[in-house]
């Protein structure tokens, strides 16, 4: 009998121990039946529209606009007008005050936004409440402070705004990604046209009300909802000076091709297949928590998720055993329940993609483990999943799944860990778990990834640059480095 089993048998809690429901109230959110497009400070009636739902219940939440190429054109014109009629020539200290206002209003209305984020995106309320919203507000607060200090960030370079920025964001952190895009763009004196993800438009639309309260001049921020066609129209629009895209590597490549020869500035934050490397001298229980946070945080809908676990062979068995045990305690279900750890999969399309890759993993010969859990009948759900017996060539070890699915692989030496970890076209993030300081720094140096978390995982901060190597994209968001994509220099 292992030590873990002994501890488990001695555990004082009964095995059928359950939680009472602890739902966060929905009352704080007042949704309109329909939303238009937010252009030039006005709500514009869309010519086409679609229903946006809650992925945890499939309930229709609102009807939103499907922005057409004509709508995009109107939005770009509004952004251009706002850029030229004041915003770009406003003193940085005044631009800063608008951003500070936005940060404060987001803090004041954070519960409302958190509930709506969980409702429309399916993520657990404790994540939208404790991660998405505080970070979104912090991003505005951080970049507000830069608006009148750009000359110090880029000495001797005469930084100037680029113009109109077209920004396309994903559905995994809707409001947070909006803040990563809008805050630095505005701080640098640009105006923006932002397209939220097709499945998660609602917090971006509610954000327009924050802009109203902040009295941001009309046209400085324009929100055009819609699917990929709307995004493509924005990328193709000749009046846009800069494109910032966060999303899949395939779409990122298509955008890079599309912009070839146009001279437009481009930043891409694309996919990942992060290695989370666990050495036998790590603090094992902390590592298990880090692994769980690395791949099950936000249902694994995280581009930097630690989706490949590399366990040193000498601790492979106890690590996997502890991990499986820990998975049993994860609570999957209602995103608005304050005790929920893993919420709903964002869309049926994403669920199908996860199912396809999981089936491929089983077919290729990997061994699947899912803890016993009851999934709700309505909505899109996928149980936390661990694959063992995974070869590096398997699709589940190569392709980004973007779901709560972990592939466990093994290694013997640090050199082997580095070689296997880097054996991917991606290079967004990586994790290292060891108590040996010199090894952490050696690993951090060798791993080809833009973010390395040592003895932690999935930490984010407005001051900390984020972005990828290789096919995970280029450009950085966050920190001083996150200003550069929104500036041109009159050197």
């Amino acid at each position, binding site marked *: 009998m292992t030590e873990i089993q002994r501890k488990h048998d001695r555990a004082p809690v009964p095995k059928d121990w359950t939680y009472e429901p602890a739902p966060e109230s929905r009352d704080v959110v007042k949704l309109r039946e329909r939303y238009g497009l937010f252009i030039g400070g006005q709500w514009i009636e869309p010519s086409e529209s679609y229903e946006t739902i809650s992925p945890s219940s499939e309930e229709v939440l609102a009807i939103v606009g499907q922005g057409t190429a004509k709508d995009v054109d109107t939005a770009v014109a509004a952004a251009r007008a706002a850029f030229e009629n004041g915003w770009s020539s406003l003193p940085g200290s005044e631009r800063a005050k608008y951003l500070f206002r936005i940060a404060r209003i987001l803090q004041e209305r954070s519960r409302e936004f958190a509930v709506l984020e969980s409702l429309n995106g399916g993520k657990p309320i404790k994540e939208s409440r404790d991660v998405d919203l505080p970070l979104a507000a*912090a991003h505005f607060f951080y970049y507000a402070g830069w608006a009148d200090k750009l000359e110090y960030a880029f000495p001797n*370079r005469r930084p100037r705004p680029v113009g109109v920025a077209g920004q396309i964001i994903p559905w995994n952190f809707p409001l947070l990604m909006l803040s990563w895009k809008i805050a630095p763009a505005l701080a640098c004196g640009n105006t923006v046209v932002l397209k939220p993800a097709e499945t998660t438009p609602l917090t971006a639309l509610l954000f327009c009300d924050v802009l109203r309260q902040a009295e941001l001049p009309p046209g400085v921020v324009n929100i055009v909802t819609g699917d990929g066609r709307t995004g493509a129209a924005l990328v193709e629009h000749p009046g846009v000076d800069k494109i910032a895209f966060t999303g899949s*590597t395939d779409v*990122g*490549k*298509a955008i*890079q*091709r599309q*912009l*070839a*020869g146009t*001279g437009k500035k481009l930043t*891409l934050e*694309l996919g990942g297949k992060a290695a989370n490397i666990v050495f036998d001298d790590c603090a094992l229980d902390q590592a298990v928590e880090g692994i769980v946070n690395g791949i099950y945080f936000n249902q694994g809908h995280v581009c930097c998720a630690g989706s490949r676990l590399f366990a040193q062979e000498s601790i492979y068995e106890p690590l996997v055993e502890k991990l499986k045990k820990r998975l049993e305690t994860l609570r999957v279900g209602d995103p608005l329940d304050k005790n929920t750890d893993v919420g709903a999969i964002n869309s049926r399309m994403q669920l199908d993609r996860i199912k396809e890759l999981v089936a491929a993993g089983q077919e290729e010969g990997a061994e699947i483990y899912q803890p016993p859990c009851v999934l709700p009948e309505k909505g899109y759900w996928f149980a936390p999943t661990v694959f063992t017996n995974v070869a590096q060539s398997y699709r589940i070890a190569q392709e980004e799944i973007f779901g709560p699915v972990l592939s466990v692989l093994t290694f013997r030496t640090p050199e082997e860990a580095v070689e296997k970890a880097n054996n991917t*076209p991606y290079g967004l993030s990586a994790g290292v778990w060891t108590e040996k300081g010199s090894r*952490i720094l050696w690993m*951090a140096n060798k791993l080809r*990834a*833009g*973010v*390395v*978390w*040592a*003895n*932690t995982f999935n*930490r984010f*901060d407005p*001051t*900390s*640059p*984020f*972005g990828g*190597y*290789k*096919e*995970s*994209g*280029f450009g*950085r968001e966050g*920190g*001083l*480095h996150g200003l550069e994509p929104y500036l041109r*220099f009159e*050197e």
Partner: protein
Amino acid sequence: MTRLPVKKTYKLFIGGAFPRSESGRTYEADGQNVAHASRKDVRDAVKAARAAQPGWAAATAYNRGQVLYRLAEMIEARTSEFAELCTGREEVERSIDRIVWYAGWADKLPQVLGGSNPVAGPYFNFTVPEPTGVVAVLAPDEPPLLGLVTRLMPPLVGGSSVVAVASEAHPIAAVELAEAIATSDVPGGVVNLLTGFRAELGPVLASHMDVNAIDLCGADGQSAELERLSAENVKRVVRGRADAQSPWEISSFLELKTVWHPIGQ
């Protein structure tokens, strides 16, 4: 009786060696027969660059700076020869000074481009610049030496390795530069110089899956097509200028890595 001079065969520079083009082709430029590199030569050069890059990046910044400074010494000693192969002495001197200027950046970049980040939590967090990897350079036609030096130094000082296509019209200075590089302690494969036709070699470099960044300085009308090809592996595309000198030129060929670690007892 006057002595008949020994004429030089102008060859490629790949992996620290001076091979002819595997295609056996040459073309005439600057009154000489110059190697006319093939697509296979490009692939060989990329392979050599990839193999050499980790060692170059792992060298201490102080060492990289000294090696590049040594290159300036090697050119200085051959100033007269170089002067005959480009627009003259002034171009050579500016090239030497530019190399010295960039050499001094090797051990200063991380402090100017990186730093620690004051995150809101018990973590130590810092950002360091790292080399992008293998960089392709399409050198401008003019000026033949300074243009090439201007585009070579930024990736090199940051720790990347380079495959460069020399000025098509005036390639002789590049071959001479290769000889200076070969005697300056730059490890073999860190710089690879090809002479040939950009229209033929550019697309091979732009679509090569093991090239991480491409400098389109000399691409002329080809830029849009090369940018399109570059998207296949999300290459960093740099539209370099033939005469520029700044640390931001270097940062175009750097990646930023951010490392987090908890603070605790």
